[in-house]
């Protein structure tokens, strides 16, 4: 039952312009930052580090700040995702379908959250392409990059959970977005 709700949630997200715009925006901003970081690394940082043994490498100076920026960006973007989930359903009256069906409140909330995590998984898969692109040209510290990605996943997961909670409090999506921000 939870999976059913999550799957429909995910399907509806990708049926809307919003999800695609969010993906596009995130990839655009992070892509720009990524190229700036790579450029800085090649022209400024690398020549200085070349002399020192055991100095921080490309993972520290490109992947780590990229993940940091992704976290900051999602702080702004995740309310846009969560505002839909419960308050929009109440505003358009579709919540009645769930309420009149044999599902419990727990199942509804978990289903919604799982759907959001599904979207997050797609987003993370795209973000993982950035470090993967670096790996084509250089040796990456996979442990560090992986830990960073995991941390980012959990961080955004917590944003989404908080956003979902705020979304349950009001029937006005815009208010829900503001509140969770």
């Amino acid at each position, binding site marked *: *039952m939870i999976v*059913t*709700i999550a799957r*429909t949630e995910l*399907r*509806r997200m990708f*049926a*809307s312009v919003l999800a695609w715009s969010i993906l596009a925006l995130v990839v655009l901003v992070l892509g720009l930052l990524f190229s700036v970081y790579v450029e800085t690394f090649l022209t400024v940082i690398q020549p200085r580090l070349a002399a020192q043994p055991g100095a921080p490498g490309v993972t520290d100076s490109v992947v780590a700040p990229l993940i940091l920026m992704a976290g900051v960006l999602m702080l702004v973007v995740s309310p846009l995702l969560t505002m839909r989930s419960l308050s929009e359903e109440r505003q*358009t*009256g*579709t*919540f*009645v*379908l*769930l*309420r*009149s*069906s*044999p*599902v*419990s409140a727990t199942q509804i909330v978990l289903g919604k959250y799982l759907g959001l995590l599904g979207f997050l998984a797609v987003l993370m898969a795209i973000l993982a392409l950035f470090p993967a692109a670096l790996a084509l040209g250089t040796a990456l510290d996979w442990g560090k990059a992986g830990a960073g990605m995991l941390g980012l996943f959990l961080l955004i997961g917590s944003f989404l959970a908080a956003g979902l909670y705020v979304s349950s409090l009001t029937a006005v999506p815009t208010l829900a977005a503001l509140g969770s921000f």
Partner: protein
Amino acid sequence: MPIEARHLFRFYDRHCAVRDLDLHLSRGEVLGLLGPNGAGKSTTLQMLSGTLAPHAGQIRIDGIDLLESPQEARRRLGFLPERPPLYRDLTVDESLDYAARLRRIPAREVAAAVGQSKARCGLGSVGRRLIGNLSHGYRQRVGIAQAIVHAPAVVILDEPTNGLDPIQIHEMRQLIRDLAREHSVILSTHILPEVEAVCDRVQILVHGRSVFDSPLSELAQAEASAYRLRFAHPPQHAQLSAVEGVTVAEAVSSGRIRVRLEAETGVEALVRRSVELGWGLRELVPEGESLEGVFTRLVYADRGAAP
């Protein structure tokens, strides 16, 4: 019994929307819930469908207590609220599929259930269209298809013909009559002819209270004691009253006269006299205690004022 509700109460702040309401629905019956706006029809249906908790009272769906085991009870009912709960960004098929799964239809039977409910609601050709692009009439049908996809014992429809054009209304009524063959139906409306067209029994709510509850067949029997007449050359009321079998004659609007008859044979005497004296009878309409009469009487009685 598909629905049995006793002593329902529901308050909004201090305003009492539903007061001590008893309601029951027999198998295969279509019950019409009638009342002026704000009488508590929607509130009642929301409580019966488990989407709104009553403040007091008991509801049993197919013998299962809705408040004690809501999940079991909800499986047995389908609800179409005033605004159909439809996701505009899903197609008809997707949305029915979702509804079927939410109602715990086993995965293998979902496709069959969706197909069947689409066929019953005349949605065969629009399965792949987005709900957001459908006309109002079709959306209403998708709403009903969603409510019956799991073949519930009880179908609850809140103003199902609201906002439809006359042809769609006709089709919707046909559909509701069809539903009654397999399900018990309870619907709310403020359109009187609708009740007469589709319902077996009518219950009238005024200010959250049930003020009238009767099968329509009994109502029909009580009818036809009064007639409305129009003449080319209207006679004096005294002349009319003098006709054998006519008890009261009174003027109603625009040259029409209402008479009450003791028996149906009075009609013959009246027509004969009209021909003899050249009154020129043009209209003879049986009136009696129609549903409209009952309704107006009850609503106004409650307001404590005459119409």
